[in-house]
C-alpha cells in the first residue's frame, strides 16, 4: 500500500486516491492543423517507463484536487510531489521531464509555442 502525501491534506493511504496516468500531456491547440498521427500521440501514446515516471493523481476521497507525482515504477518510491501547472524541481524528476519523448511531439510544441521558440527553455 502506498502512502501518498496529498499537498493539501497530508499523508493518506492510496485507496483515497485515483491515478490519472501520465502528467504533462498537452492537448494540441492547433487542433485542425495537426495530423492524425500527431493527434494519436496526444490521445493514445503514453510514456511507460521502467523507472521514474511523472504522473497525475487525484485525492478523490479527500479534497478531490489533482496534483503531480514523480514515482519510480520499479521500487514505488515517490521522489517528488508537486502542484498542477508546475514542473518538478528534484534533479531526477527534472531529468525525466526533459528526456521524455513527449517534449518533441507536435502537440507539445503546438500547445506551448513559446517554449519551442525559446529553444527549449526547460
Amino acid at each position, binding site marked *: *500500500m502506498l502512502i501518498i502525501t496529498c499537498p493539501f491534506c497530508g499523508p493518506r493511504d492510496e485507496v483515497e486516491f485515483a491515478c490519472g*496516468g501520465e502528467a504533462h500531456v498537452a492537448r494540441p491547440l492547433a487542433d485542425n492543423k495537426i495530423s*492524425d498521427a500527431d493527434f494519436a500521440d496526444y*490521445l493514445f501514446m503514453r510514456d511507460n517507463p*521502467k523507472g521514474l515516471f511523472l504522473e497525475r493523481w487525484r485525492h478523490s476521497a479527500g479534497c478531490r484536487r489533482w496534483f503531480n507525482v514523480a514515482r519510480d515504477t520499479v521500487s514505488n518510491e515517490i521522489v517528488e510531489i508537486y502542484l498542477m501547472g508546475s514542473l518538478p524541481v528534484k534533479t531526477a524528476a527534472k531529468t525525466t521531464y526533459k528526456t521524455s*519523448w513527449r517534449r518533441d511531439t507536435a502537440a507539445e510544441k503546438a500547445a506551448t509555442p513559446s517554449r519551442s521558440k525559446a529553444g527549449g527553455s526547460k
Partner: protein
Amino acid sequence: MAQNHPDRGQRGLPGGTPRYSAFALAKKAMNYHQDWQRAWRDPEPKAEYDAVIIGGGGHGLATAYYLAAVHGLTNIAVIEKGWIGGGNTGRNTTIIRSNYLWDESAAIYEHSMKLWEGMSQDLNFNVMFSQRGVLTIAHSEHELREMSRRVHAIRLNGIDSEILGPAEIKKFVPTINIDQSIRYPVMGGFLQRRGGTARHDAVAWGYARAADDLGVDIIQKCEVTGLRRQGRKIIGVETSRGFIKTKKVGCVVAGHSSVVAAMAGIRLPIASRPLQALVSEPIKPILDTVIMSNAVHMYISQSDKGEMVLGAGVDKYNSYAQRGSFPVPEHMLAAAVELFPVLSRLRMLRHWGGIVDTCPDASPIISKTDIEGLYFDCGWGTGGFKATPGSGHVFADLIANDRPNKIAAPYSLDRFRTGLLIDEHGAAGVAH
C-alpha cells in the same frame, strides 16, 4: 503441413517426439529421478538467425513453434532474459474462453480456442486443457440485459454461449450463494461450455519442447539490451550474451513491450500494470467450473491440486514491480466470500503479481512497425493466456510473410491513428 487448414486446429503438425513412458517412470524411480534427459537443449546463441523472437513466454514460444512447424523457418531463436514461462505465463489464472463481443475479437479468440482443442495432440504434451465451462455472472438488471445482447452477438459468430438464470446457476454451481439479499446478488449469468482452463506451465514446456525438436534455439538467461538498426531496417539484437545478427525480430515481451519498443525509438499506447492472483490451501473439490464476475472484479476456479485460484482486477497505476497493491486482492476476496461463503475460513497460500501490457481499447497489437523487420505482438493486457496459441499462430504468419493475415490485420498499431479501435472494455463481459 500446408494441407492443414489453419482454422481446423493443427493436428498432424510435428510435435515433440515421444520419450516418456510408465516403464521409464518406474525405472527412473530407482535412482530418485536424477537422470531425466533435458526436455529441450540449452544452446549457445549462434552468430546469426533468420528470425529472433524476444520473450520466452507462451506467446513467444508458440510463435517460434508455428514459425518452424507451419512456415518451415527453423533457423530461429527465442531469447528470454529469465527462464521460459517465468513471467506472466506462469502467473496467470489459466482461464480460456472465446466469448467476445466484436467480430475481430471473436475471430482471434475462437481461432485460439480451436488450437487449444487440438494442442495436446499437436505438441504431444499434455497441457491439461479442461473444457469445464466459464460462467460470467451478472449482478444487476442492466448487466443482465447487456449480457443477453452480447450472448446473441457471440452466437451469431458461431461461438457457443448461453444465458442461465439464478436457479440454473445454483444447479450448475451448488456452492454459490444466490441469496438476493447480498450486496451484489446473482441475477443471472452467461456460460461458455467450451471454455475452461489449462496447465499454464505445460503450455510453455510443450511449445518449447516441440519447437526445440524442430531445431529452434531456446536461449534462456539472455537479456536484450538493444536493437541494432541500419536506417529503417533491423539488422540484429544486442544481448547480454553478445550481438545476434538477424533480419527479423518479433517482440513478445508483454509488460516490457514499451521498454523494448523504446530501444527502437517506437512509442506504444501501452500502460504496464500489475495484475494480481492468489491461491488458497488445497481443499476437496467444490468447484468444477470457472466463475467470473465483472462487477465485483473477481474470478475463481479450482486447480487439480485442490487450490482455489483467484484473480483480481488490474491495479490502478503503472508498475514494473511484479507485486501489486493490497487493496485490490482485499476487495476481490470480499466479493469472493460473499459469493462463496464456504471460502470464508480458507487460508491463502501464495499471492503474486504479473506485469500486464494494457491497451487503451483492451485489445492486443499484432503489428508491423515503421522499422523493416521489427514486429510486435503485445497489448494482451489481462487476458493473454487464453490467446496463446492463436496469437503465436497469426504472429508467426505475420513474421514469415511480412504481412498480417485476415485475423491479425485489425490489430495493427495503425488503428490508433485511424481510430478503428476494437473496444473490448467490458464488452467481453469480464474484468480486463
